[in-house]
Each structure stands twice: as C-alpha cells, then as structure tokens.
C-alpha cells in the first residue's frame, strides 16, 4: 500500500514559456483506483511520468510515496514502488519474448534466479495469458501486448500502477479484462492505481474516484462528487439522420474483391467484396483494434492484404505508385507522420506547390488558417505545435493536395469544440466545392451528421453499410 502525494509541483517543458503543471498539489489514496482526466495536451502524461520518475524533476521532494521521495528509495526497489503502462503498446519492451521480458524485469529487481520462474508464471496466470509465455512480443496484438505489460507490473509487485491512456488502440473485450484485473489488484492486493484517459465513457462502474487536471491544477473529487460527475456525463452518440444505403446511381471508386486483412496470425477482416463510392463522404465505425486503420493502410498500399483492390477498375498494384499516391491520399492518424518539413510555412508551401492551386489560392489559405485559428504561425516549428494545432494543419495540407479520394484517420482527434466546428465546416465546404470522395474513421462522433452520406460499420470481421437507425 502506498499513498502518492504531490506537493506544489511545477513543470515546464524545455523551450516553453508557460508551465504545463503549475504548483500542482493532490493526494492519490492508497489502494484506490483513480481516474485522471482532463483535455488532451493538458499534462496528464507529464504528471504520470513525473510520478514514475521518468522526467527530470528539480524538486524530487514534491512527489512522495508514503512520505518518501523516489530518489530516497534504493534503485533496485523503485520498480516495486511504482511502474507504468504506456499508451503505445509496442515500444515498452526490451526483449524478444514474453518470458524473456519477465526475466529482464525481475533480474533488474535482483530477484534470485531460482525464484524468477515461479513469479513469472504466477503473474501470467493472474492476467490469464499463460499461453503467451513463449510468444514473440512483436507478433502479439496491441491488446495482448498491454496484457503482457500488466503481467510484468504484477510480477514486479509494484505498489503504485500508472496507466497512460492504455486502451487507446485496443479492443473492447481486452479493455474489460484489463479493467477487471486492475480492480482486483486494488481490492485484493491493495495497489494504488492512477489511470489517465481524456474520455470518461466506460469507467463509471470501475473507478473509485475522479481526479481532474485542468489549467495545470489537480482537483480530486470525492466518491459522491465522482458519481455526480459520471451521472451528468452522457457518452457521445452517433446520430446520422440522412445516411443512405448504396444504390445504383452511385459510382464506385474503390473496389475490394475478396479483400481480407490480417495482423500477424489474427484475421481482422474476413475476405469480402467491398465498394467505396465516389463524390460521397463515408464514415467507417467499429471498435478499437478491429482493423479500420489497417484497411486504410491497405488502400494506400502501405500494408499487406488478401484479395484485390481496384481504383476505377484498375488493380492498384498495377498503377504507378507516384500516380496513385496523388489520386488516393491518406491523412495519417499521427499528425507527425504527415509532415516532411520543419516549419508551418514550408509545409503549406509544399502542398501549394503540387496541390490544387486554382482553388486553394493564397487568399483562401489565409482565410482557412484564420478559421482554424492557425494564422500568424508561419515560422513555428511543426513539432512544437500542440497536438490539436498539428492535427488542423495536417488536415489543411492534405485538403490543399485535393486528391480524388481522401482517407481521413481520426481527423478530429484531440480537438476542442470550436476546432471541431471549424474543421467540419471546412470539410463540408471543400468536399462540396471540389466534389471530393472522403472516407473517414472517427471516434469523435458529434457534429458528423451534416457531412456523412454513407455509413460503413466494421463488426465481427465484416464491413456492412448501414441505413438510418430508428
């Protein structure tokens, strides 16, 4: 059991003027499950990393575990005090197999060699992944990797378990299993758990209380306040009032024939025939980790697939890569993957050079920048922009390219309400003016109604068009 106390913690990122955490104080009670929430980019990850001792902290005494700062704890004991499970499942392992990673972690804690197998096996059994013991980590799915990461923390017997948006890319059943195990760790083993997520949906029955991070300050809500907050919270609902089922009048632009998708040895999409329609906006929905992004990668020839994909009746493997890339573009989920230059102005100039310059005149681009609240940032380094600003700029860059088909992978991720409104307005206008084909994946569901014409749902490894729900 360990109580985490944060006292007057201030943290400023290098080369930033304003602190992200400003004399923040708060207590995370021992043996409780706290949900740390707040807007994207508000400092949740930073706070967790500071607690875990993963960022340099000028005042180590500002964070204590049962009144002891981490620096006062012997190096070999730190991981049994606090451990972290990260958002990106695949970059949190050192070794090749599950068993070797467990050995590595326990060796670091100087557990005697004879005791390592027993502790490893017990941890795997606790999380219910004993069959994965000899598997290669890189061949596991994101959900399995997160389970392994939890098993390692269980084996290390860490008192405080920190999780940074651990469910961002994993499927709902795995999420449930992990939440059950976390609650068991709290109630049966007295572990202190702090889980960060910007979205409150699906936590009400699991967590003890909410900790809200806003404007660099932390507010811990009591159990009663937490329940009130959850009661007032309504998860977003998808409301599509004018979607239609495909009909003969529509033109097919992309056609999958016996198209199947896999990840490792896991089938994501069982081979099926699939059509995407030109000059319309199609929304693809489905659970995390079900293969939506994998489908986009296949459509732009960045990933393997079974069967055939044709663009305007020509197999995409037979179209010259350079030519095809100008016809079917992808707005990547990670904004940084899109950028090729250093500053905002350079990035826009690149799009203008090769994009649709008759529509996107300099005046229009300036107007759009104004609408997106991005004006006057020409010389800013792209990678120092906030995640929301990056997302908006990324969208603008891809719109200026105006490919016949534009795939948008989570274009609204991490945007505030005003930005979502602006982006939706721009998307609707440009789509109409240039008669583009848009296909989008979005977890952000509100505000999509005006844009979406067709709705494709991915469920049970099958994609099917949906009509208006009554």
């Amino acid at each position, binding site marked *: 059991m360990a109580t985490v106390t944060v006292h007057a913690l201030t943290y400023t990122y290098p080369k930033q003027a304003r602190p992200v955490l400003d004399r923040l104080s708060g207590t995370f009670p021992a043996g409780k499950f706290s949900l740390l929430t707040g807007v994207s980019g508000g400092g949740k990850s930073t706070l967790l990393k500071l607690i*875990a001792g993963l960022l340099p902290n000028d005042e180590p005494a500002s964070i204590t575990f049962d009144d002891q700062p981490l620096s006062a704890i012997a190096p070999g004991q730190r991981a049994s005090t606090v451990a972290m499970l990260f958002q990106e499942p695949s970059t949190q392992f050192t070794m*090749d197999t599950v068993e070797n990673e467990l050995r590595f972690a326990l060796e670091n804690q100087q557990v005697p060699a004879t005791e390592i197998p027993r502790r490893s096996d017990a941890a795997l059994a606790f999380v219910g992944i004993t069959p994965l013991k000899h598997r290669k980590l890189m061949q596991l799915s994101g959900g399995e990797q997160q389970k392994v990461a939890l098993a390692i923390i269980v084996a290390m017997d860490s008192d405080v378990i920190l999780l940074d948006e651990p469910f961002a890319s994993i499927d709902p059943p795995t999420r449930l299993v992990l939440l059950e195990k976390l609650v068991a760790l709290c109630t049966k083993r007295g572990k202190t758990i702090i889980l960060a997520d910007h979205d409150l949906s699906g936590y009400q029955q699991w967590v003890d209380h909410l900790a809200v991070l806003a404007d660099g300050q932390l507010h811990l809500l009591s159990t009663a306040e937490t329940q009130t907050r959850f009661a007032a919270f309504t998860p977003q609902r998808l409301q599509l009032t004018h979607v239609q089922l495909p009909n003969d009048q529509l033109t097919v632009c992309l056609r999958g024939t016996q198209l199947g998708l896999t990840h490792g040895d896991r089938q994501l999409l069982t081979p099926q025939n699939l059509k995407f329609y030109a000059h319309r906006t199609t929304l693809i929905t489905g659970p995390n980790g079900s293969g939506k992004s994998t489908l986009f990668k296949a459509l732009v020839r960045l990933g393997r697939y079974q069967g055939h994909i044709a663009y305007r009746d020509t197999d995409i493997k037979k179209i010259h*890569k350079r030519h095809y890339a100008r016809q079917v573009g992808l707005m990547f989920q990670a904004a940084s993957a899109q*950028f090729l230059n250093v500053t905002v102005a350079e990035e826009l100039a690149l799009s203008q050079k090769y994009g649709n310059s008759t529509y996107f005149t300099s005046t229009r681009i300036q107007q759009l920048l104004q609408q997106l609240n991005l004006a006057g940032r020409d010389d800013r380094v792209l990678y120092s922009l906030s995640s929301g600003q990056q997302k908006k700029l990324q969208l603008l860059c891809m719109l200026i390219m105006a490919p016949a088909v534009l795939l948008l992978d989570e274009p609204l991720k991490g945007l505030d309400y005003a930005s979502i409104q602006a982006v939706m307005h721009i998307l609707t206008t440009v789509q109409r003016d240039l008669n583009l084909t848009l296909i989008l994946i979005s977890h952000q569901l509100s505000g999509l109604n005006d844009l979406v014409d067709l709705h494709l749902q991915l469920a049970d490894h099958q994609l099917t068009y949906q009509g208006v729900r009554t």
Partner: protein
Amino acid sequence: MNPSLKLALLVLIALEVSFAQVWSVNVALIVVSLGLMLINHIPWRRLLWLTLVPLFFAGTLVWSLMLRGNASPHFLIVLFTRMFVYVYMGGWFTLTTKPLWLTRSLEQNAKLPSKFAYGFLAAFNLMPKIQAEVATVRAAALMRGEVLHVWSPRLYFKVILAAMNWSDQLAAAMTSHGFVEDAPRTHALTVPLVARDWWLFGISLLLVQVGLFVGLP
C-alpha cells in the same frame, strides 16, 4: 563454445587472414567452417547463398586485378579463398550463435556494461518498425507530390525524429521495468564459461598460427 570466446576467435582469425598470404590455411579454414555448418544442419538454400555471393564478388575482384594490376597468381588465389573464409566463418558464427545468447554472454562473461547489452536488444526489436517508418515517410511524400531517394535529407530527418521518439519511449519503459544504469542485477540464465571453452579457443588459435608460420604456400 562460449559465444564471447567464439566471437573473439572469429575476429582474431579474420584479422590475421586479412594480412597473411597463405592460401592453404585459407582452404583449411574454409573446409573446417563448411564442416561445422554442415554438422549444424545449415539449410541448403542458405549455404547456396553463402557460396554464390562470395563467388561473384571474389570473381570480379580477381578478374579486375588480373586486368588492371600486377598481382601474382599466388596472391590471386589467396584473395579468392580469403573471401570464402570471411563468409563461411561468418556463416558458421551466425548459424550457431543466437544474438540474445551472445549479448547475455557479453554482459556476463566479457563484462560489457548492461546498459549497452540491453540497449542493443531493445533496439533490435524495432527492426520491423524502422522498415515500416521508411515506407511511411516515402508514402507520405508521394501523397504530397515528392519522391524521396536515398540522397534526400528529409527521409533521414523524418526517420531520425521517429528514432528519437522511440528511444525516449523505450528508455522510459526500461526504467519502468526496473532497469537502472550501472546497478547490480541477477541473472535468470547464466552463460557457462568453462575450461573446455578456453582449450578450444587456445588450440584453434594455435593451429592457425602454426599453419601461418611454418611456411605453407
């Protein structure tokens, strides 16, 4: 044989062979390496690859020297066989040594600091991610109308940015899994280093010395 000693033996012999001009020793080393590869059940396709590659490169090298140099036939034979020594010995080593076991041995037997051993291993796992990143950067450029070549700085720039991110994430993850630089660790598996390893190492090296210095052609 202990992997660290095996590595030392490999590098020492390769170094000596690079300067020595005794083709009979080269042939002996080729025969021994070939034998060791066969005993260890080398897949025939791999053996074919390990034979054709040096055949091609040694062939072009010797041919160029014949046309444009004044090397003696003896020296040409030495060069030709030398290439096979490198590749066959390398083939034997990689066939019989697992990178993970070698790294553990270097940590335990050769006292390589554990931060180097596990830093390498952590990056090893990223190999597929690196390939995917190169493909993604090139695809992102194509969608914007640019073709990135091996001489395009932006290709390297983007991949290095990603690499910096990954190394931050991996370093944090290792710390979170209890790794502390220069702190003592236990070993779940110990790599044995026994007298027999030293004998094998010593005798092999001695035999090569004898071969090189008794005046064989």
